[in-house]
């Protein structure tokens, strides 16, 4: 059972909806940033190394 009677109640979160939802938004932003940074870092390393190995084998 949902703890709220309606979607409006859920969004309002009692009296402090702005505080609750801004926390959730902020955390979503930070975690997404961390995940993207991790995956991009991986791609970047592989790209760099590939370039490096190709340069070495050509010289």
């Amino acid at each position, binding site marked *: *059972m949902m703890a709220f009677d309606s979607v409006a109640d859920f969004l309002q979160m009692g*009296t402090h909806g702005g*505080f*609750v939802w801004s926390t959730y938004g*902020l955390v979503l932003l930070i975690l997404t940033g961390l995940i993207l940074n991790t995956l991009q870092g991986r791609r970047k390393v*592989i790209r760099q*190394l590939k370039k490096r190995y190709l340069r070495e084998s050509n010289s």
Partner: protein
Amino acid sequence: MSWIWFHKLGSPKWFYQWSSKWATAVFLIGLLATLIGVGWGLGFAPTDYQQGETYRIIYLHVPAAVLAESCYFSLGVAGFVYLVWQMKMAPIFIKSMAPIGAAMAAIALLSGAIWGKPTWGTWWVWDARLTSVLVLFILYMGIIALQNTLEDVTLANQAAAIVSVLGLINLPIIKYSVNWWNTLHQPASFSLTKKPTMPMDMWLPLLIAVIGFYCLVAGLAMWRMQSEILLRERRTQWVKEKVMNDGV
């Protein structure tokens, strides 16, 4: 008692292959558990009789705070391992884990501030708990800065390991700050020795969210360590083959 696991764990190649099997699964389990725990807490856990709905911030605040401390503890252990045995994997672990810990500490501080405003009437107070967690965040940033600015890799490894070990002193201060000093912050939500003060349909989603955060962090840490291993072991044949054959 065999010490083979210790030697295996010290081998970047072995760790790379082992973590390749687990990283994605652990990360996805973490994502699922986090969504279940946090979603349950946000929409289905009962309303708090004192704080109303505002207490639902706890489902992000506590997992992040627990992980900020656990990650730091693991950094301290890795720092010790590096200083004593010069194990290659230890600085790779420290470098990969520090940004994750910093993100967790940032979430704990920010969610705490937003929670503090409606419940305490202030975003921030310079009390023991809040200040010691701010120090934790600064320690993480210091370790990241050392790793990124020192060009000599050995020096960077050593400096980061030393700070990691020294910073351990901050952990008991964080833990006991709510008991030793007067503070606005409430005492721990979970304890190994006492029954939770919350009803089960409040603490069970919180526990699931904490486990979810642990798995998320473990998955991310494995991925970051793999990148760092490729970079540091770039002169070895196995890394070259992996990168050139897209076997990564």
